[in-house]
């Protein structure tokens, strides 16, 4: 069955295990945000927010930019590659299970037809 066998995918899963970091990704999906805006939206302090942003940067879910007109400001932007990879893998796992369930359906329905046929032949032989 499909295995999450890339280090990048593992890092994505792990980074997104934290609800605060998922919230950051949700915010950045709408538009890039400044660090201060993210801290305010999360109701977290600057240091805690920085830590989360550092994790998200280290696994390449977000990137940091400094606008040309103000080098003091840091703007965070979502990088879609990692999420696409996660999406592809989730779809692989879904396909795996869909294929298995389709095979299962054939077997379960054959078994149901067989017991219905047995009941029809010997109506009083079983409860």
């Amino acid at each position, binding site marked *: 069955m499909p295995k999450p066998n890339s280090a990048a995918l*593992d890092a994505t899963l*792990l980074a997104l295990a*934290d609800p605060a970091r998922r919230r950051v990704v949700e915010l950045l999906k709408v538009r890039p945000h400044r660090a201060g805006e993210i801290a305010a939206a999360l109701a977290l302090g600057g240091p805690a927010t920085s830590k989360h942003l550092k994790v998200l940067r*280290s696994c390449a879910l977000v990137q940091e930019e400094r606008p040309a007109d103000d080098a003091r400001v840091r703007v965070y932007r979502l990088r879609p590659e990692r999420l696409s990879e996660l999406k592809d893998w989730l779809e692989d796992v879904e396909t795996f299970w869909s294929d298995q369930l389709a*095979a*299962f359906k054939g077997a*379960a329905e054959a*078994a149901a037809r067989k017991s219905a046929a047995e009941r029809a032949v010997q109506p009083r032989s079983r409860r």
Partner: protein
Amino acid sequence: MNAGVVTVSIEVAADPHTAFRVFTADIDTWWLRGPKHRFRARGNGRLELEPGVTGRLFERYDDGSVFEIGRVLKWEPGERVVMSWRLPNFAAAEATEVEVRFEPVGEATRVSVEHRGWHALRGDHPARHGLSGREFEMSKARLWGENLAAFRSWIHHDAARPNP
């Protein structure tokens, strides 16, 4: 309600008890064959699921060896079975969880599979770069829980959308 990473369901023309019995006792007869669907590379294992809580789900190979995929955590005939679920490349303590539910729909049964817990993987993996030991342990222990439903929906609908 459950909110797994992966949920797939199908309706089968069989009553829930028959569906449960075929799913569990006959698992080797219908589970697709080949390396893509079985657990070890050659894809030639025979699957067995032992009934009841703590029963093993495993593949047995021609040379007599066995790979244990997981154990039964909940066993409710005709209703649901929950199993721990490991792949050959997982570390010792890593496991995901698979829940299979059987719900009557008229004369038929809706069978749903939820595969969850993928976030809890890989304690010894390079993935831990960027996370301190303590933080790593915390995130490993934390369940995604209800938020996953929302998470999954944005993964599916919007993940590839570039930022404006």
